[in-house]
């Protein structure tokens, strides 16, 4: 099976399973780095892929903890991560990609406040400030909701500032033309 992996946001691969295991063992890939192979719904952090977890330096130390196990026990201990159904991996993967993708719109809110619409902007800042806190607590649904609200108020401010600019330009232009006559 051919694996792809990401390094600093750049896609690498495909490489064979032996190659990627060698990279993991050497420490070239961190447990938070994303990996993917054909058949997986999306990119997943290395630490959540059972068949690669054994190659991680951290996982090696756990192996000697069951040295007295019989051969049958060992295979069962190894088999359990393999038998983990895809379903627990999928939500974890979704959480991972979405958590990084929930923007707080904090700078946009500040710009809306300072450049144009103080009341709208303050509402946006209040929601923007909630996003990071909710993300840290793990409430991704709440964070996404707050992010959406912040975006809404920023967009509203942007609409108002555009209208104000256009009105100002029209007013000044008409005054300019009148004074020219």
């Amino acid at each position, binding site marked *: 099976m*051919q694996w792809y992996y990401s390094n600093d946001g750049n896609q690498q691969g495909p490489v064979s399973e032996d190659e990627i295991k060698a990279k993991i063992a050497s420490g070239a890939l961190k447990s938070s780095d994303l990996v993917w192979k054909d058949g997986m719904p999306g*990119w997943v952090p290395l630490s959540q892929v059972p068949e690669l977890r054994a190659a991680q330096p951290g996982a090696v130390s756990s192996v000697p903890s069951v040295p007295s196990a019989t051969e049958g026990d060992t295979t069962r201990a190894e088999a359990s991560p393999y038998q983990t159904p895809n379903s627990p991996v999928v939500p974890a993967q979704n959480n991972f*990609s979405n958590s990084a993708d929930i923007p707080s719109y904090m700078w946009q809110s*500040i710009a809306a*406040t*300072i450049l144009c619409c103080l009341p709208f902007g303050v509402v946006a800042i209040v929601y923007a400030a909630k996003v990071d806190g909710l993300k840290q607590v793990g409430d991704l649904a709440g964070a996404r909701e707050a992010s959406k609200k912040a975006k809404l108020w920023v967009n509203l401010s942007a609409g108002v500032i555009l209208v104000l600019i256009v009105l100002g330009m029209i007013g000044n232009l008409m005054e300019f033309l009148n004074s020219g006559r």
Partner: protein
Amino acid sequence: MGANPPPLPGQVGLRPWRLVLVFVSVALMMGGATWLRLSGPNAMPYGCMLNQLTGLHCPGCGMTRASHAMLEGRVMDAMRFNPVGMVLLPILGVALGIEVLAWVRGTVPKRRIPIGKHGAVTLLVVVVAFGVLRNLPWWPFSLLAPH
């Protein structure tokens, strides 16, 4: 086998229309700057409506004059017209530039200028306080008024 991997999270690819919008906006801003440079800060017949109606200096008062002074390289004059704006707006410009660049690329910025809840509130307080203090007619607050 042979399936291509899905795009990495945060890597969706260039959005052409967003790029066009950014180019148009930048062109408009450069056009505005050129006009301001050529015709001077007092070419606008109205100026600020709020100032005309109430006589008050809002936190943004003096920014047209300050921008014009900067276009002519007169930094100290620009600081006299609106010191807070001259410090804050470049920072805001860089912060928003980071967001816009990521937005055009269809991704999320890897690094932002760090500002938390408290930073945002502090900025807000500074701007509002500036707007109040610069209307006080006594020294040293009178230095904050556009002059």
